[in-house]
């Protein structure tokens, strides 16, 4: 349901994850509600797909 995204070289501190149901990019930002949903998904025992090697 989610896939990790490699950080961009210009902002390695910024992380995103891609939601595979609609291909949206979700920032790792605490008050983004989609990120909160992602954290709940992780807490339920799920694991995201790894980032693509060529990103």
């Amino acid at each position, binding site marked *: 349901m989610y896939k990790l*995204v490699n950080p*961009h070289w210009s902002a390695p501190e910024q992380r995103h994850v891609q939601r595979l149901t609609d*291909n949206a990019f979700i920032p790792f930002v605490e008050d983004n*509600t989609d990120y909160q949903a992602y954290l709940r998904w992780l807490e339920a025992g799920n694991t995201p797909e790894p980032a693509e090697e060529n990103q």
Partner: protein
Amino acid sequence: MTLAVNIAQSGSNNVTFRNRIINGAMVIDQRNAGASVTVTSDGSYQLDRWQSVLTAGSKFSIQQSTTTATGFKNSTLLTSLSAYSLTGSDRFGWQQQVEGLNTYDLSWGAAGASAVTLSFWVRSSLTGTMGGCVTNSAQNRSYPFSFTINSANTFEYKTITIAGDTSGTWLTTNGTGLVVRFCLGAVSSYRNTAGAWAAGDYWGPTGGVDFVSTNGATMYFTGVQLEAGTTASPFEYCPFGLEKYLCERYCQTTYPYGTAPGSNISFNGIIGRTGCAGVNGTGEIYQSTQFKQQMRTTPTISFYDVAGTAAKVTFTTYAVQDTNNISGTVGQSSANGFGVTANQSGYGGSSYHYLVTAEL
């Protein structure tokens, strides 16, 4: 001499920006452009700022409608899709979360909390007692309210005055200040006595009609207003451009108004293209976008090539015009904008449409 007027404490209805509800007249529908949507996901948004909450999917649909009360252009139409029998902890609602930065003056959670008045137009194929609640972000303080549909398929005007809650935690940040929820169905354990604050998560009044339990039932809402004070004032009309701007703190798109994101509309709405491939014909193209206004928080980002394919960009060089379906990814993002990166050969630039959401 103090000139500032605290609207909540004055209780005055004769002020502008008194409506804490955004898009109460249901005129803005950036995501779906008037199309009907079967609601499958808890927490999903349809018309701008209006959210569906549920424990089972596909029990109702939502659509911006032109069937509306006199003096309005639009309403939200909810249609029940089955005769669903509620069980367990089932509950269904349609709501707006009001940002704490827009409710802090109510002083809820403390002595001196201001009363508010909710008013709206509603039409339903069902008659009887309907309702909803006002609740906090933690959903541990609830004020169930009720209203009666007297005549089927007729717009009726309802007003409900709610005493300010002097207990509980009510955020005054960019989080959820309060929630106004219309109940579409709830088991008895999520219902409570109307007209009083209670500690707990109560979605509607005891004995209220479960809308989702009648196949084909309809409800229309428009003119929803929540204001400080104990009196409902006439609905505060807002210029279309301003209403859309208020919505864009939470949801923005490049698509022209009336066009759903992901549509194939070529470059219509895109204001330019920038970016450059790397040296020797291979490398990275990177295009950044500044939002129309700073958003509530760093948003979730969807971008589309000009043919409407998600997570793709359109690449253009002097030699080759507009190659679609080029994979991209978000490089940087903030509440002010974002950048998309893609690997591509040749000197040129990338273009994309976007939909970004920073809802509560």
